[in-house]
């Protein structure tokens, strides 16, 4: 195995570790920091893949990742939680050790699912496909077990990180147009969610999405 491939594996493992840390995290502020670090790990691994395979468009996506997911979106989220004045602890539906055990189960499932696919691939990054799949599933799990709207949105954004890693590991990334489109979508999505937060809170005096289950007037 070449050094580049080992470094990519290490960074992918780091990304998965951060996904687990986000799953276990109780504070929103730390959650945002972890999200930024995950973006940084993703950007670094994309950069290494770009350098070692000579795929020039991956440089762009690495820069895009740093600009959007390490700087802009965490900044927007910071402002959001300042304006909403929510620094309280994240509420979960299931307690954290159980969530972690579920997470291990998902990781095993994802690894088993990805193993035959990555054996057929011959890219430098084939072994990270399972890790990418696992971090997508973990972000799903985070969206399911969190009760408040902000952590759910962070879960959604983290899922995009996982998808990005999957794209890089399976096919050295998507075409540049698609990547630009996805990045823009994520950015716009964050803004729309931000507006939604204010509307939800105005309507229900809380960001607990349980209230949205009783939208019907009875």
């Amino acid at each position: 195995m070449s050094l580049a491939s080992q470094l990519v594996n290490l960074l992918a493992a780091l990304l998965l570790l951060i996904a687990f840390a986000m799953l276990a995290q109780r504070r929103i502020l730390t959650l945002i920091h972890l999200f930024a670090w995950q973006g940084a790990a993703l950007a670094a691994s994309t950069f290494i893949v770009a350098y070692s395979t000579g795929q020039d468009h991956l440089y762009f996506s690495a820069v895009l990742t740093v600009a959007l997911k390490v700087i802009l979106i965490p900044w927007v989220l910071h402002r959001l939680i300042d304006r909403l004045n929510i620094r309280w602890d994240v509420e979960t539906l299931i307690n954290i050790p159980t969530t972690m055990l579920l997470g291990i189960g998902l990781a095993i499932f994802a690894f088993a699912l990805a193993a035959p696919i990555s054996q057929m691939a011959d890219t430098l990054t084939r072994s990270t496909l399972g890790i990418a799949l696992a971090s997508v599933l973990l972000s799903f799990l985070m969206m399911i077990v969190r009760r408040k709207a902000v952590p759910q949105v962070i879960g959604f954004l983290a899922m995009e990180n996982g998808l990005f890693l999957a794209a890089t590991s399976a096919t050295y990334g998507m075409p540049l147009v698609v990547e630009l489109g996805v990045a823009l979508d994520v950015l716009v999505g964050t803004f729309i969610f931000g507006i939604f937060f204010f509307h939800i809170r105005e309507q229900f005096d809380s960001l607990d999405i349980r209230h949205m289950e009783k939208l019907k007037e009875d």
Partner: protein
Amino acid sequence: MDNAPGFAFQILQSVFVVLAAPLVMGWVNQCRARLQNRAAPSLWLPYYTLAKLFHKDAVIARDASPLFRITPYILFGCMWLAAGIVPVLATGLPFAPAADVIALVGVFALARVFAALAAMDIGTSFGGLGARREMLIGFLAEPAMLMTMFTAAFISGSTQLATIVDTLAHREFAVHPSLAFAGLAFLMVLLAENARIPIDNPATHLELTMIHEAMILEYSARHLALIEWAVAIKLFAYMTIGFALFVPWGIAAAGDWAALPLAFAALAFKLAVAGAGLALIETVLAKMRLLLAPEFLSTAFLLAVLGMLIHFLVSG
């Protein structure tokens, strides 16, 4: 093959570990005192304490059973045995095949069971409380410890600690993401098993928050000295297990006298760094609530399992 040099190394290592363990304890305490802006105690303080305790008369509760009397000797014996198995100075020692990593964890478990039994033997409330807490920590830390060891065992293809060290020290340089995970998990287990902050505070005087200290409240004089000494050896053994798994460079082969000074120097350097690191961790972290300990240890278990999974994923 003549085994005499091997045995000489074995005896040298066993004696060295027992003599050097309090020094490591003193070094950790000194670093911690400096970091906390206190006047640092002497490096030799643990030796003075042991000497003082050995000269006192032992007081034993009236209701104590023989179990209470023999437990300090069992603890000391277990830790000494563990220190003889772990490759501290050299690999390929004659004792090493006696136990692989699984048996090593078993030796630690044996010591823990006796410590807990002796704590409950007297029937004081603090003893029982400490014993239960210790067993809680122990049963959560043990699987994490085993998983950590298995990760290294999978990489080298053997559960013998000596073989693991040989494989890891003499391979070409490679980044193992799985070992990074296992290393983090091992650090967490080390903190929990050796009753350090954030799980337990070794310097506490408040009985209600004690875990390990609550179990040995009833001991005095030579019994207490043996237990304190065993605790120091345990910390030493865990540190050297960590070195063996994650930074095995510089270790000698049994019977190779020429490599011995290098092995001593490497070990001293690693112990100094690890002791300072431990003191740093204990300074920046606060002791966590007992109810959060399962979360801490399940995180360690998770990291260890992840390390193992990633090993399969990346190598397969």
